[in-house]
Each structure stands twice: as structure tokens, then as C-alpha cells.
């Protein structure tokens, strides 16, 4: 928890700096929340209080709005956010099964973030890639024609890339220390 609080504090400070850019009208509520989430990935609890003060609306109204729309989230996303599309075409082609496979593979349920914050899993109504169903969005990238065995491949690819980055970093650090 302690780590999260520190992080929340950092977000809090950043938002306090950004808020004055928005006019103090309640109609700015959705753009403000969108801007915070875009920058920080989620809406920390304390931040909503700041927003309430700035726009001069009740915190209840902010919760009302933020929970009404699918876009907003109150937990930090994983470094590799995974969104499984469950639009009609994806559903007909087995989107539910793909979601289940991710749940099984990552050991988290839909809507959750893994303990190491590496992955988060979400379902989305439709990303509009229906001709390429079933589709999954990994970070910003859309994966088309996903199958249960491809799920394994996607995760492995992320893991391998992570490992390579770690090794690269280690190599750089050793190089830096020998240079010194």
C-alpha cells in the first residue's frame, strides 16, 4: 500500500498543476477526467476530490459520472494492458473463450491487474475491427484473428521482450560501471 500512496501523491501533485488549464464549469467534467486518465492511467481517489473542488461540483456527482461511463477506471492499469473485444463478430467467433484463456494464463479475472502490475485485463464492447475477429488490443496494438494458442504466443512475446530489455539494461549498467 505504501508504494501506491506515494504514487498517488505524485499524481495528485501533477493534477494540481494541470487543473488550472480547465475552466471551472461543470461541463468540463468529462474532459478533465479523460485528461487525468490519459496521463496517469487511472483516477486515484484523492484526485477526484481535487477535481470536485476545481469544478465546484459534489464528489458524489463525479463518482456518478465516472462510474456511468465505461472508459474510466479507479485502479492503475498494468504495464501491458490487455483488452479483449467482445463485439458481435468477436463473440460469434469465440471472444469469450479468448478472454477465458487470458484469465487462465494470467491468473487474474477480467477487470483486474496482476499483482506485479505487469498485466491488466479488460473486456471492451467493440473496437471496430469486426472483419478481423476475434480481436484483442495489447497496449496500443490490435492483434487480429486471435486463437487460444495465440494467447500463449502473445504472452510469451511480451515476456521475452521484457527479458531482453532487462538483459540490455544490465549490459549497459555493467558497461557504464567499467567505463567509470
Amino acid at each position: 500500500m505504501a508504494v501506491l500512496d506515494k504514487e498517488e501523491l505524485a499524481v495528485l501533485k501533477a493534477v494540481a498543476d494541470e487543473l488550472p488549464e480547465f475552466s471551472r464549469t461543470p461541463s468540463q467534467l468529462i474532459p478533465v477526467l479523460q485528461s487525468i486518465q490519459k496521463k496517469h492511467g487511472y483516477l486515484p481517489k484523492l484526485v477526484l476530490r481535487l477535481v470536485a473542488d476545481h469544478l465546484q461540483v459534489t464528489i458524489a456527482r463525479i463518482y456518478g459520472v465516472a462510474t456511468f461511463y465505461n472508459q474510466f477506471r479507479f485502479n492503475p492499469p498494468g504495464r501491458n494492458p490487455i483488452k479483449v473485444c467482445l463485439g458481435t463478430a468477436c463473440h460469434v467467433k469465440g471472444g469469450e473463450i479468448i478472454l477465458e484463456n487470458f484469465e487462465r494464463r494470467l491468473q487474474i479475472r477480467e477487470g483486474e491487474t496482476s499483482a506485479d502490475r505487469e498485466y491488466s485485463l479488460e473486456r471492451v464492447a467493440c473496437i471496430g475491427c469486426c472483419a478481423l475477429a476475434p480481436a484483442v488490443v495489447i497496449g496500443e496494438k490490435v492483434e487480429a484473428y486471435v486463437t487460444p494458442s495465440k494467447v500463449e504466443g502473445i504472452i510469451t512475446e511480451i515476456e521475452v521482450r521484457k527479458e531482453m530489455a532487462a538483459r540490455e539494461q544490465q549490459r549497459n549498467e555493467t558497461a557504464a560501471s567499467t567505463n567509470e
Partner: protein
Amino acid sequence: MNNSPRAFLAELVTAAAAKLAELKNASVPVIYVGCATCGRAAGAMDTIAGFNEALVANGIEAIIRKVGCLGHCYAEPLVIIQNPGFPPLLYQKIGVGEAGILVRSFLKDGSDPCYEYLLGALEADDNFPTLMDYPRYLFENRVIMEHCGLIDPEDVDHYLAVGGYSALAQGLEEGGVRVLEEIKAANLRGRGGAGFPAGRKWEIARNVKVFEKLVICNGDEGDPGAYMDRTLLESNPHQVLEGLALAALAVGAGRALLYIRTEYPLAVEIVERAIAQARQKNLLGSKILGSDFSLEVSVFQGSGAFVCGEETALIESLAGRRGMPQPRPPYPAVSGFQGKPTIINNVKTLSTVPSIIRNGASWFTAIGTPGSPGTAIFSVVGEVEYPGLVEVPMGVTLEHLVVDVCGGVKNGKTLKAVQIGGPSGGCLPASLLQTKIDFDSLKESGAMMGSGGLVVMNEDTCMVELARYFTDFTQGESCGKCTFCRLGTRHLRDILEDLTKGVGSAEDLQTLQELSEMIVKGSLCSLGKTAPNPVLTTLRFFRGEYEAHFAERRCPARMCRSLIAFYIDLEACARGCDACVACCPTEAIFTTSNRKKAIDQEKCVKCGECVYACPPEYDAVRRISPPSLIPDQGVKPLIEEEKEEK
């Protein structure tokens, strides 16, 4: 007359045409890559990287341009290559490897145009089949999508060079009343789904004596399965902006908004750039094209609520509130956002406006049917041979659309039903394929036009499960204001969920029917009023399928997972092939004592992956319903047998 809008525009067009001509007559090859969201999903950005790398490696100079979507989604990534000396050629499924081959054999040597990847030529030519020879192009009538995928959406000059903004210049000279009269005469009906005449809506707003008015482009395309609004915004944003400006001119509005859902980040980015470019050229902003008309345009991002496609809910969300529909009247056209007259039109409706002004109302009414003139864009997806976006004249039959234009059902299977109009539409059985596509015929059949999503289903799709899916969707998206919508859809969903598990009775079907009728009556907005459509139509046309679920605990389509099982036919299974073992996500498949494969029913999650993994020459995995029919083949795992021997 030198400073008339048309003269003003003519100067812009001359410069734009010269710029485009330069590109068309370039002495080096020009490569256009389809980079709308669907193209990117299929790997278009990698394709571009592949081209760049191959061009550098082979020392070839070429121009690469990103364009929008042609609608042939089954063939993505799509690439058009304009190699001097050849007509522009359209290639399909071009990945990194194919890009390299095209550069080496076509651009470097100039000898081999790689027929194996070719979809067709874009211009008539003696040596290449043209796209116009395909049934899809023959039957389509591209009005709104005419330039999609062929021009650069991020360069306003491309749109100007193909006649863009000429309707706006004409409208500015002739005045807003003329624009309004033309749209009324054309009987343009709202393409968002309801089909309300756009001209009549505009007239109401025009007649309100309020100084400040607002026009909004509704790009909150929430229907799962529909993506034509996204494609239009990404492929030809200026056409939407021109329509929006004409609408503002007709009603006398000085402010315009594009409400685009935030799930379409690329569309938002492209539209924002388009607005900036149009403003810079004085096509939007103050005193447009030297006239007295000014229009401020901005983008508002919706944040993911299906109900916000409804206009009163959309207005609520603009005000920073929950998107809950409000009773009408007052209609938004009289009193909408902040009490000002507000016109809300769909992306497709606004995209149609410029062509009507340019070609006249009589041209428009000559297309389609008298009651529903013009064309309709459908996203045809599901089990169809050539899924994608198609634009056909109103009044053609569903069969024509699915079979002739989109190649019919995939893999030689039979067509069972089409679901038209998204969650608020209905399921029509194959026997009703002669239904005409227009606002009124579809309504009569029990379905509706909706936003134009069309899902084609073969015998492997369970109608009960599909009804459950849509009800689950609308239940989740209900804003909660009306009790019938909030609780009624939930009850519907629960009954349907039980049915997919084999639990239910004839009484439940009666409840479904009655509850559906009550939800239709008791809901304020169209979300609730149309939510039971999938249930009502499937009950009407596929009652037997419902009965099989609870009476026989059997899913005739073998889709509902509680009612099916998989097993491997030992007769068909090959020795030593491990394809199914390798693909199984739960390691449920084991090797039997005779070195064939069997499925551990306890571990099996019924994902069906083994069906696809099993090589077609064996085709050994069987799917049966009900699970009790699974034959006892008396198999034991090899390991257990070995243990016993020890």
C-alpha cells in the same frame, strides 16, 4: 465576383490539383498503404516498415502515403502501387515479406507485377483485371465511400482536388435556405438508424428564433459489429466536415461539435488534424471562403456509453452529466444543449450532404427507393466470404447483399440467419432473405436498419446464445432510468442464460415474450424500446431451437458450452500426430495406450481449439450435443497403462 466563395475555392483547388497531379505523375513509384484502424490491426504499419527497409536495401526511391480504408477488410493490409508505366495496382494481404518481394520484383526490375498478390487494377487496362470487374464493385454504388481508401485523409488538398468543399462554396453563394430546400427535396433520412428526415429536423431548428444554435456530428458508434462511422471519419474526414458546415449553414448555427467516442483514438486524431487544416485554408472558422458565414468546430470525446448515441443522452454527457435520455418534447432541435436549438446528425448522414448539394436532389432520389432514397453502408461481418464495408443502393435485398456482393457464406456452409441493426435489431432467418433493405421494409420484418451492422451466421451459431449476448449487452448499457429497461432486461438476460445451460421450461418462453413486450412499452428511449428485438425475433423464427435447449438439454448449433462435449474419434485419429496436444490450453488432451489421442472431459474447457488444430486430412475431433451422447471408447492414458504394467 472575384471574391465570391467559388472563386475563392477555385484558387485553392488549382493549387491542390497541381499538387495531386504531381503525385499522380511522379517519376518514382508511389505506394499507398491502407492505414485505417482495421488496416493497422492487420499489420499495415509493419508493412510500411517492410517497404521502407526493402526500398533502402535496393536503393530505390519511392513515395509512401498513408490512406484510409477501401472497405475490403478481408484483404487487409491493402496496398496500392503506382509504378510509372503501369496502371495503379491494388494488392491484398501485403505483409513485411510480400512488401520485400514487391519491391525487388516489381519496383526494382519492373518486370513482374506479382499477380499472386494482385486484387485488381484501379484503372481499365489491357493487361490487368480491374476492380470494376468484381461483383462487389459491379453491385456497389459508392457515393459516400467514393474516395475512401484512395485519398490521403491527412491532407486537405487531396479532398479539394477531387471536388471537395465545392458543395460548401455553392451553399455559401446560394444561401442556407437553398441548402435546406435541397436536402428536404432529396428526402435524406437520418442514417443513424431511426430514419427521420434530416431536412425536416433542420427546418425546425432554422425556424426557432434564437441567435445561438449548435450542430453536432454524432460519431458515438457504439454498436458492436458496426464500424462505418469510424471508417468515414478516418478515411475522408473532410467530407464529414463539409456536411457539418452545410448543416450549420442551413440551420444558421455558428458552432459545431463532433462527438466521437474515445475508443476511436485514430479517428479523433485525424479529425482534429482535418479541422486544423480546413481552418488554415479558411474552409472553416471565421468568414468562410470570404463569405459572412463563420463556424467554430471542435471535437468532444465520448467516454464509452452505448446510450449516448441517443441524442438527448448525448447532450447530457456534453454537459458533464450521466448520459441519461430525457423525455421529448422539447426536441433538441428546439431546445437542446444549454437550451439552445441543437441539430444532431450521424456521420453517414452528414457525409451524404455534400454530394446532394453538388448533384442536386433529383440525382439523389433517383438512387434507392422512393421512401428511402440514397445508399446504405453496411458492415457485413461474421461467417461471410468477403467481410467488410459495402455501400449499396437502398431497396436491394438482403440476399443480394450477402450472397452476390459479399460472396456468400464461408467454407461452403449454409446461411442460417442474419442479425441486422446491432443489439437493437433483429435476427432474420434465411427464409426472409428476400427482405428489402430500406427503413420501412426492415421495420416490418421485425428488424431495423439500425446503424448498419450485419452479422452473417451459419448453422454453428446458436440463436438462444446470440439473444443472450445482445440482452447482456443492452442490460449492461441501460442507463437505469426506466425500471422496465433496467430490471426487465436483466430478467430477460437471466432467463436466457439459464436456457443456454439447459435450464428452463415452456413457461419461460412465455415470460420472455410478455416481458419483452412490456419493456418495449415501458421504456423512454430507443435503447429500451428496441432492446428486446433480438429476443422477440429469435423466439419468432427459431422457437424450436429454444425448445431443444430445455426439453432435450441439447444445443442444436452445438455452441452453448454447458450442453456440448468434444471427443476424438479414434478411427480417424492418426498415430503420432500431436497437433491437438500442442494447442490445448489446459493440457486436457492425452495420448492413449494405442498412441492415439483422447480428451480428458474433466479438464476440457470446450474452447474448440483442437477442432481447428486437427489436420483436415484426419478431421478427428467431434463436437456433440448433448454431452451424454459421448461414446465410451474405453481409452486409457498411455502413462497409466505403463504404470500398471510395472
